[in-house]
């Protein structure tokens, strides 16, 4: 045993995710993987991991974990919670905090208390070396519906021990990234089809001209939208089941669109009016229930150019790594005394981060 990360409290829905398990959809196995692969890549970059190493995907409310290893290096990217660094049990709290987008080294007994996310519905906690959990069909991603991947195919629970690949890490200069721009596009870009002919021209105008609200009933499988119903054409709302892509927008009989996300089913029998372009999927994965969403139709060439632009942005991320300028962890008590905390936060908000 090289050590573990002990779950003190699990957060709202914390699962192990990587870049998913493609290659088995013909057997009915959903791909899964991070809802926001850009933030996953950022978190891994900060701790020196390869981009697709499995990390904890945190939804809405973070977990509290404790280090049961000699030392670990961790970093969080995505929605920005407060992250309290907990001292070993029995020691007085130092009131220290860790900023998102910064790596830090913790030693045995220390812990992290991660609060409510803001700016995104998901964040990723990566650990140097990753978790020592056997991949299932080539991936550590958790698919709760089929109970595969991750830790026993389920979300984390209090008391879980997540085994680590690496039980100790040397001290080195910690690094930071400028916070990612997590703002979602005002209009999410879609390519119409494959079954846009199952909708009337009025139905398509409704899709492109309306603002929808993301339903509370959304999950990793699908984002349900509330708003004006799309009118199906005389071809109706049942099709002979065919394949489902990441970002497929299926429209069942009630006319309300469902955007299919990471844990989407491999096939389905409702017509799919359009597909969200791949470059806009990470932003979609970050959107909170209750948020507004509208759509803009683009052609396939525009979608492909956007995919290349996102890939270039991701490739450029490593060049933006910088040494942490202050102590590896923020001493909140001291910052409060100097009245700098709100300044830091506001500076980030002002920059659109």
């Amino acid at each position, binding site marked *: 045993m090289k050590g573990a990360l002990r779950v003190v409290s699990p957060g709202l829905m914390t699962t192990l995710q990587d870049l998913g398990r493609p290659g088995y959809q013909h057997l009915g196995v959903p791909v899964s993987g991070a809802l926001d692969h850009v933030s996953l890549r950022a978190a891994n970059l900060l701790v020196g991991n390869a981009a697709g190493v499995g990390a904890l995907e945190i939804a809405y409310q973070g977990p509290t974990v404790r280090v049961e290893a000699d030392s670990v290096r961790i970093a969080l990217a995505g929605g920005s919670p407060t992250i309290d660094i907990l001292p070993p049990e029995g020691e007085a709290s130092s009131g220290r905090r860790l900023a998102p987008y910064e790596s830090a080294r913790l030693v045995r007994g220390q812990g992290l208390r991660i609060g409510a996310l803001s700016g995104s519905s998901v964040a990723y906690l990566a650990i140097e070396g990753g978790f020592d959990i056997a991949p299932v069909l080539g991936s550590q991603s958790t698919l709760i519906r089929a109970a595969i991947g991750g830790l026993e195919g389920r979300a984390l629970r209090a008391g879980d021990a997540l085994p680590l690949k690496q039980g100790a890490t040397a001290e080195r200069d910690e690094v930071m990234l400028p916070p990612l721009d997590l703002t979602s596009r005002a209009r999410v870009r879609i390519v119409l089809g*494959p079954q846009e002919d199952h909708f009337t021209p009025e139905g398509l105008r409704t899709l492109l001209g309306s603002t929808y609200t993301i339903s509370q009933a959304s999950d990793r499988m699908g984002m349900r939208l509330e708003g004006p119903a799309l009118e199906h054409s005389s071809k109706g709302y049942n099709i002979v089941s*065919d394949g489902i*892509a990441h970002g*497929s927008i299926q429209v069942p009989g009630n006319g309300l669109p469902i955007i299919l996300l990471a844990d989407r089913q491999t*096939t389905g029998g409702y017509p799919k009016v359009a597909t969200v*372009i*791949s470059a806009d999927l990470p932003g979609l994965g970050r959107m909170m229930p209750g948020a507004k969403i509208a759509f803009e139709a683009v052609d*396939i060439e525009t979608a*492909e150019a956007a*995919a290349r632009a996102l890939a270039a942005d991701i490739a450029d991320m490593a060049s933006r790594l910088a040494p942490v300028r202050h102590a590896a962890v923020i001493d909140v008590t001291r910052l409060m005394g100097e009245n700098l905390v709100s300044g830091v936060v506001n500076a980030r908000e002002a920059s659109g981060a």
Partner: protein
Amino acid sequence: MESSSQTRFLAAGDTALVVEFGDRVDAHLSALVLALGQKLEATGLPGVVEVVPTFRSLMVHYDPLQLTHADLQRAIAPLLQGLEAAEIAGRRWRLPACYDESLGLDLADVADRSGLSISQVIERHSESVELVYMMGFLPGLPYLGGLPSEFALPRRENPRVKVPPGSVAVAMAMTVIYPQESPGGWHILARTPAPLWDMARTPPALLAAGDRVSFAPVSLREYERLSAAAAAGELRVTPEEVPARGRRA
């Protein structure tokens, strides 16, 4: 038979392309879909992530950084020329299934709706040789087609929240087998002890698109014996013929 001129290319965003052969559940269309999938995989075209055969279309998932929609369409078009439906030779399975009313929860209801007796329902269902059109919905779940018209029933008005694993269920003249406990709206006729999904197996799914399946009725006692063996990992279900099919990813 060759693929018809009705074949359509449809974009499913910038990461998937649909090659659609028709809009029906039809064994010939399905054979064309499977044949194209095998041909495309055999080309080893860089950027193709995986292919997913469905009743009447092939979904090709690809990496838009390696392959554009137009490139992929250009690569597939020549594969459609002279595409032969006859290339597929799936495996033949006869799966044990217990049609006891304690497990076949909707047997009486289906008998009622179809105008058959319960024993006729069991006979007609178990003796039908059905084609695995596709796998979908859940890991290892097969969609089997080819039942007589008595089984062309709509789905249940009130889907069950929990269908027991192994349940063999019908609707729309098709059969599905639920590998895991899941919600489900089809009419349950029987339960099979055959492990449809086993992570210890490679591939973990017992069945694959193109296979043919019928059911061998077993008594409740025999079902319980086979189930216990399956739970202990000792039930081996094998196809009746040696597989004679192409590589599957």
